[in-house]
């Protein structure tokens, strides 16, 4: 029997993998994809819990998370493009003007 805990565990694993990716990758787009993995794991949690709890709030939340993800994707990718135009790179090592 698959319980809610299975789902929660899976999503925790995915969340951790996403986090790991954010921490280790230096390609901005890949980092963004890792963030998407994290968001998706959250979505999984929401839906699993929504079913477990027995109301639709969680699923609605997932809906909005997707919206947000889309919005962020638009803005984020736009920012990356703008940056790329100036620096010919989206490597996070090149985000180095502002420090200390």
């Amino acid at each position, binding site marked *: 029997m698959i319980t809610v805990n299975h789902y929660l565990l899976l999503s925790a694993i995915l*969340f951790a993998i996403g*986090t790991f990716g954010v921490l280790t990758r230096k390609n901005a787009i890949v980092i963004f994809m890792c963030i998407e993995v994290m968001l998706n794991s959250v979505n999984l949690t929401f839906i699993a819990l929504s079913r477990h709890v027995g109301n639709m709030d969680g699923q609605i939340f997932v809906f909005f998370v997707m919206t947000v993800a889309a919005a962020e994707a638009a803005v*984020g990718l736009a920012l990356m493009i703008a940056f790329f135009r100036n620096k010919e790179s989206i490597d996070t090592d090149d985000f180095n*003007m502002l420090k200390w």
Partner: protein
Amino acid sequence: MENLVQEAIQNVNLQAIMPSLVLCVFGMAILMVSVFSKRGSTTHIAWLSIAALVVTGFVTLIGWNNPQAGFAGSVLLDNFATFFSMICIIAAGLTILMSDDYLRREGYPVSEYYPLILFTTAGAMWMASGTDLMTIFLGLEVLSVSLYVLAGFFRNQTRSNEAGLKYFFLGAFSTGFLLYGVALLYGVTGTTKVDGIAAYLMANPEAAMNTMFIAGGSLLLVGFLFKVAAAPFHMWTPDVYQGAPTPITAFMSAGPKAAAFAALMRVTIIGLDGLQSELTSLFWILAVLTMTIGNFIALTQKDLKRMLAYSSISHAGYVMVGLVAWNEIGLSAILFYMLVYTFMNMGAFAVLVLIGKKGEDNLTLDGVAGLGYKKPILGIVLSIFLFSLMGLPPTAGFTAKFYIFAGAIEAGYIWLAVLGVLNSAVSLYYYLRVMVQMYFKDPEEDFAWVSINGPVTISIVVSAVGVLYLGIFPHTLMSLAKLAGF
């Protein structure tokens, strides 16, 4: 189907979202206007936005002492929300006032800038008034996404790009944590409504022992702590503040931060009331950490914007002292402090806007050498803001700090107050350094900056008057803050 619509309409209470509604309507209207306006002429858009904010301000004030709930418990426009909304409106207004000439000087007279600020403000209002985590979250996202854009607004400027990107990535990252927290809380309590969580906690005190609940709560906090730039989630602040256009930096340090505090307060004080003892000890540590890190690193800064960024971190630390106090005084002190901080910090940034050259490379300590002589009035005004940031009477910074520490001491956190004032003492040094440059050094080069006047002056004057007035006659606003506190 009929009764579904009925049901839906029953939930609608436009009064509860009137300020943000007005703002959004204005925002969209201004977007439309900007489409038809001549490229590069943004002044009338700016004034339109100001008008929008003024109207919104009135609309917001109407809601004072008239709490309105609506949308099935999604929002509650109480005094608390009203107060914070006003802070955001003021912050946005001051930002817009200092933006127009600035944008033109920097070569980005883009009219969409203003609606974005309006939408940000609306997002902030939703954060302040939201009682459902979903509303708060979406408000936060509206605010964040606009700010990502605004921070990276100077799209041909690498610094601005970098600021926007860093803000974006770290923001999105923290959003992940925030969401995960919400999810876990939802799992435990079965709801995303703040009062629902509180009710659940009331009914099931053992939930405080439920690791899922606790982990959810703390991950939720992380999201807000990120926005208020509390250590150790402050890392984005200096970089973003430094890289973003100056008015946006000013805005970020005041409006969104206030909104984040509002949300944080609503979630913790109302929602997680049952965790008070754990949360206060956490906040205790974070407050000290935040102000210490902010102040200590600020000591070494040469770039004024970056220094003010660190100073803004430390101020977040002071504000958290009020949260630690977790009592009426402390909480209303946060409201008062944020308002005062809006005035003093935005004032300081407005002066920076005024004295910056194109590209703003001169906004360093050496860059303001002798300012007090070349531009005496500007010097005096900047001094007032700095004194206020230091927390010296008779400026508002002092009354605000007093209020905050009074809360902490009333709650028995004397050592926190002592650490707080010692931190203020450290902070004196770097604020004084600016004044040392302004008054005690002769100018290294002639001040030949592109002198911009106009609306910026208004924002400076408003801020200065606010700082002094609230310093000498804080009574009215303190009383209002008292009424607005929980």
